[in-house]
């Protein structure tokens, strides 16, 4: 390998680091002040690119000057900043004090809405952007040609860092941002106009994301997958750097840029895995990131909406549960389609229930629970398709696969808490997704694998439905039992006060790890059942949208009720199944529904049921 090649590789690493920093700095500033991890930050980035591919060519038609190109980029960034202001005023200021899980879900709702709106406005086809006038040539460095625009991008990162430093240290607004990042309550107590500060912060954060997106247009076409791909990278950068720390984000972006540039040479297929491994290692050594501060995530108020109340079922509750079970068993009397939907509801209900075992009962907000569901499905599916085993041993392997990976990932996950924990679960889920997606020879890649059929005795829809009903109902009853048992109570106790749990002799971390493993195994079992019900497996089973579906089921059902998630799953899946074929805008609808639930209906169906019962009593 030659020096000139290594240099160019390193330079292109610097260019991507620069872009990544611009985006991540916005995310980290917004988190520092508002304590909200804004999923929609990736949407702002995408909007920046789409607005730029619209505005810049229009400006260049007036005059092909480099200045107009950059005017267009800046206009796009400012326009996105204005959208950030809109989001702050309409949504964020209503959710500053709700539990983290609800904040994450609400901002993810915005992601879904923006995805559909982008499709509506710009259509499904990728839009290539114009190249920057004056920066279209290549520069020769040590006999290698290197694009001038990339060199320009390398300079943008440090320039933005410098401007942010000036802003943070030389302006009143910047000083307030730093003060709020350190101690939000104190800033409030000093009589600072918080509403203005937060709105201004969102403007800055969104504008930085928009700038990042707009600067990308000469390199990549604007496309509708930009948001989720960038947001995971930006998360990784902010988490490694320390949430709320701009210099930390800069260092982390540099590290990741180089890791990607050289990782490609050594492990071309698993660069994503390398990035996430770096994150896992950093978080284990420095749980708050390289330059982060512990209090940024700790010491939040847990509101009743986030607390599971493990009351035993009353009479009406029992009747409702029995009625539900009877309906499940009677479904085959209806048509085949109802059976199919019913089977899926049962499977997803087990997955959602296992998630609530973590979220509601353990206070462990997992944003990547689909990983264990999907790994269970792949564990079972691969045994059938690749090893030629029948359904029965494959179904046994599913919870083992889910549990084993949950144990592996959970080992790192339970070292953290709050938002860091949520980010790490998301990162691990993305690792699993990337491996399944990229390891084509084994997993079939994007297309997945077909031919995952049940054994002959269970081949008919009806028989399989009863098999699923028997397994899932038994598993849910068992898990519910565990919630009420000392193990579940211990997880709840550690959620209420880790300090107190420690002082009565509980090894909190080990218990949380075991709980994470158990929930992963249950999700894996559900995944295995799902694979056989579909006859196939594919990477979407592990994706973020699947994890969000599970969380939406919890939210809809009512996170503080033990059986709420089951009801939530039934309602969510039935609604999805009914509405999705009817509309092209399912995501818009889902996003709005999630936000509406967070804002007006945080206790879900179980909460509504409670209110109804109390009113009658």
């Amino acid at each position, binding site marked *: 390998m030659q020096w000139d090649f290594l240099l160019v590789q390193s330079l292109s690493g610097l260019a991507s680091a620069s872009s990544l920093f611009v985006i991540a700095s916005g995310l980290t500033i917004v988190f520092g002040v508002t304590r909200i991890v804004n999923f929609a930050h990736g949407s702002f980035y995408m909007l920046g690119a789409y607005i730029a591919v619209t505005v810049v060519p229009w400006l260049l038609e007036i005059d092909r000057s480099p200045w107009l190109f950059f005017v267009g980029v800046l206009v796009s960034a400012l326009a996105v900043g204005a959208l950030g202001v809109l989001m702050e005023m309409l949504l964020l200021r209503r959710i500053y004090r709700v539990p983290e899980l609800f904040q994450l879900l609400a901002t993810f709702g915005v992601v879904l809405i923006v995805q559909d709106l982008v499709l509506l406005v710009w259509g499904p086809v990728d839009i290539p952007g114009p190249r920057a006038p004056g920066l279209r040539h290549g520069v020769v460095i040590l006999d290698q040609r290197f694009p001038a625009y990339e060199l320009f991008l390398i300079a943008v990162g440090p320039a933005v860092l410098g401007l942010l430093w000036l802003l943070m240290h030389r302006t009143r607004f910047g000083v307030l941002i730093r003060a709020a990042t350190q101690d939000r309550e104190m800033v409030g107590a000093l009589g600072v106009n918080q509403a203005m500060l937060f709105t201004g912060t969102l403007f800055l954060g969104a504008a930085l994301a928009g700038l990042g997106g707009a600067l990308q247009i000469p390199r990549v076409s604007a496309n509708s997958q930009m948001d989720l791909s960038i947001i995971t990278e930006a998360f990784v950068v902010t988490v490694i750097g320390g949430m709320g720390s701009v210099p930390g984000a800069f260092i982390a972006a540099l590290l990741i840029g180089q890791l990607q540039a050289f990782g490609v040479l050594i492990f071309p297929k698993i660069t994503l895995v390398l990035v996430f491994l770096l994150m896992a290692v950093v978080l284990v050594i420095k749980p708050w990131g390289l330059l982060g501060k512990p209090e940024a995530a700790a010491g939040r108020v*847990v509101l009743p909406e986030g*607390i*599971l*109340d*493990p009351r035993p079922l009353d009479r009406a509750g029992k009747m409702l549960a029995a009625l539900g079970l009877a309906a499940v068993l009677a479904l085959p009397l209806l048509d085949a389609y109802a059976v199919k939907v019913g089977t899926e509801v049962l499977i997803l209900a087990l997955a959602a229930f296992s998630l609530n075992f973590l979220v509601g009962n353990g206070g462990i907000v997992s944003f990547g629970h689909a990983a264990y569901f999907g790994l269970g499905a792949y564990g079972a599916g691969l045994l059938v398709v690749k090893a030629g085993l029948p359904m029965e041993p494959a179904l046994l392997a599913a919870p083992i696969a889910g549990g084993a990976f949950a144990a592996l990932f959970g080992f790192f996950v339970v070292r953290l808490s709050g938002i860091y924990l949520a980010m790490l679960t998301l990162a691990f889920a993305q690792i699993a997704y990337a491996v399944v997606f990229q390891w084509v020879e084994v997993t079939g890649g994007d297309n997945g694998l077909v031919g995952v059929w049940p054994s002959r005795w269970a081949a008919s829809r009806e028989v399989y439905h009863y098999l699923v009903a028997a397994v899932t109902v038994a598993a849910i009853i068992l898990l519910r*039992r*565990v919630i*009420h*048992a*000392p*193990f*579940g*109570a*211990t997880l*709840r*106790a550690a*959620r*209420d*006060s880790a*300090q*107190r*749990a*420690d*002082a*009565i*002799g*509980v*090894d*909190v971390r080990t*218990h949380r790890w*075991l709980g994470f493993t158990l929930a992963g195994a249950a999700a894996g079992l559900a995944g295995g059942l799902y694979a056989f019900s579909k006859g196939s497996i594919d990477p979407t089973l592990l994706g973020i949208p699947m994890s969000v579906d599970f969380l939406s089921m919890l939210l809809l059902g009512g996170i503080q009720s033990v059986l709420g998630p089951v009801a939530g799953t039934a309602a969510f899946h039935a609604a999805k199944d009914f509405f999705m074929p009817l509309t092209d805008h399912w995501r818009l609808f889902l996003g709005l529904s999630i936000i509406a639930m967070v804002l007006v209906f945080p206790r879900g169906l179980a909460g509504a049921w409670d209110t109804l019962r109390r009113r009658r009593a």
Partner: protein
Amino acid sequence: MTLLSAEGLTKRFGGVLAAKDVSFGLEGGEMLAIIGPNGAGKSTTFNMVGGQLRPDAGRVTLAGQDITGMPPRAVCRMGVGRTFQVAQTFLSFSVIGNVQMALIAHHGQTRMLLPDAMAMHQDAALALLERVGMAAQADRPIGELAYGDVKRVELAIALAAAPRLLLMDEPTAGMAPAERSALMALVAGIARAERIGVLFTEHDMDAVFAHADRILVLVRGEIIARGTPEEVRADPEVQRVYLGHSGTRAAERARRAHG
């Protein structure tokens, strides 16, 4: 044998010496108070004994066994109960549920998967609540209780581990004056009856001088005086740097009230 002995505990935070060569001993059934102005190193000393902080130098032994630097859960299993400056309880549990949870942990049953946790140790939990005068409220959610009552429940939680030693960080902080002396009298009664050693920090001088057997005065990380309440009260150094006039008056008042 001395129940608790601390030898030469030292802790530094950056450039600040929070505790310097702090040594003391404590017998079963004895109440030892650590007092001192804000920032004197009371909580630091306390947390080094309880396992929340690892000392830079020095040793903590419990009945002859070295417990220096053990994590809190291990210290708990050695027979040390603890209450916190801001009461730490399990907010989603009932009053009795909190004590049951502590008993489950004490019996090493936290990994059981099948029995109903809230059916376990009911009688023992009720008996503990009886001892702190909270039996009547057993089934209420703990979040509904007045703060003084929460502190009593926290004491019952700490007693669930059948401790030889109780560590109480500002046991009466945040309580009404009448509640304070009642709680301290309760603690002293239990400690003497069951030969439990109690190490506590306290800002409330009435509580200290009325109930402590011995007092340790910390100033800027160092012990400047130690002895019985009378000796500490009479110490001119203590009066000068710590008690001031109002403190001396409180001491007088306490002596008259309990003398």
